């Protein structure tokens, strides 16, 4: 479903991604781990071209974006429409209610009739356990609730792939579980997911594959059971020792 080839990203002089190759199959849950500054968030943001890579290519559902050339606008639009993104800081629209946040994409971008979009938004919010918070503004919701609205907002556009950028890092510890549960449910439904996270429990429970990135390169990739118990690379071992 996703095929990344030779991906490079430079911010000025700083090279953050140094030749990433990666395949993600349909229905797979891939968890990306790595020390801070390793490039994992940048990699995720390249997948929907929120950051434009410096070189390499990404193929999504047979559409290839080749970053050795200028990427066409409609190519970017395709990547955005096929992917949903969940941010570390939720980035909900503060002037819109939970329901309006979820309806915004379908109504404004997909031009769906309001009543259709509303029905879908209601069922999505029910699904993430916020059936009683439709008319709440983001500031009236806890972090965990806001993040679940964020997930519903992304799902409303019916993406083929969901991208999660440290979705629980900004949450109080007791709120992490409710967000991870929603993500696990989604994984069980067969959603293709790429998740950058520090939640090793989630990786162990839900990931099909864990990828360890350091200094802009994929160091090691394996099933979670293998990678966590029997890492092959010294650097992976060091990292796991620090966090487990």
């Amino acid at each position: 479903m996703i095929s990344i080839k030779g991906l490079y990203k430079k911010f000025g002089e700083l090279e953050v991604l140094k030749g990433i190759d990666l395949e993600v199959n349909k229905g797979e849950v891939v968890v990306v781990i790595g020390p801070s500054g390793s490039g994992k968030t940048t990699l995720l943001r390249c997948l929907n071209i929120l950051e434009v890579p410096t070189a390499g290519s990404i193929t999504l559902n047979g559409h290839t974006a080749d970053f050795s050339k200028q990427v066409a606008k409609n190519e970017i639009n395709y990547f955005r429409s096929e992917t949903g993104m969940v941010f570390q800081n939720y980035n909900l629209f503060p002037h819109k209610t939970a329901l309006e946040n979820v309806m915004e994409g379908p109504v404004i971008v997909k031009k769906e009739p309001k009543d259709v979009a509303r029905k879908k938004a209601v069922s999505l919010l029910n699904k993430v356990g916020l059936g009683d918070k439709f008319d709440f503004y983001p500031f009236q919701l806890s972090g965990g609730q806001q993040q679940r609205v964020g997930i519903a907002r992304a799902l409303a556009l019916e993406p083929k792939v969901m991208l999660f950028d440290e979705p629980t890092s900004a949450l109080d510890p007791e709120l992490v579980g409710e967000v991870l549960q929603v993500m696990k449910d989604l994984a069980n439904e067969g959603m293709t997911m790429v998740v950058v996270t520090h939640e090793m429990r989630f990786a162990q429970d839900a990931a099909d594959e864990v990828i360890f990135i350091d200094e802009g390169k994929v160091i090691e990739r394996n099933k979670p059971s293998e990678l966590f118990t029997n890492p092959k690379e010294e650097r992976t071992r060091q990292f796991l020792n620090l966090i487990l």
Partner: protein
Amino acid sequence: MKMYLTNILADPEKIQRLLDIALTSLWPLLEGALYYTLPLTFISFFFGIILAVLTALARISTSKPLQIIGRIYVSVIRGTPLLVQLFILFFGLPTVGIVIDPFPAAVFGFSLNVGAYASEVIRAAIQSIPKGQWEAAHTIGMNYTQTLRRIILPQATRVSIPPLSNTFISLVKDTSLASLILVTEMFRKAQEIASANYEFLLLYTEAAIIYWLICFILSLIQDRIEHRLGRYVA
């Protein structure tokens, strides 16, 4: 001052005369406010804000020429006195064959002014909205215009209400400068009446009170708008 007051208070006839003048000039002054001062303010503010939004967008755009045009416009308008601008428009332009009536010339001048000052307010307000808002909008597929209109500007509006109210209230008072290019707005009316009966202190004070009342009502409206737009903020 003391002499003036003692003389008046000692003379009931004089008091009566001043009251009469104050009352009979009230309607002409209000007329000046209703027909000229307020329309001049509202029309100029309307066009000025449109100009300000466009200028703000030009200045934060990625296009160098647009940035430069915006920068020069703001610099020229802010760097020259409003009165001089009005004189150029009304007394200067006829020299090159462009004759504009007093009222449209004033609207033109004030709009350009509001556009320049308010563009800085709006630019700052837009830039104060976190980058994550743009990104979130882009990830759900919204383009630049949709993001600006639906996500960024509504939030920027809330931030810019207090400083824009400042601009608006300044504009109410600045319209008195239009008296100098022959717009018969409230202050010019006051001047005309005073030059006939020589009661300058009375007429100018009366005009000042009306200006103050207008600004007072406007700041009440500002409070209501702020309250309304603040409903989604903790």
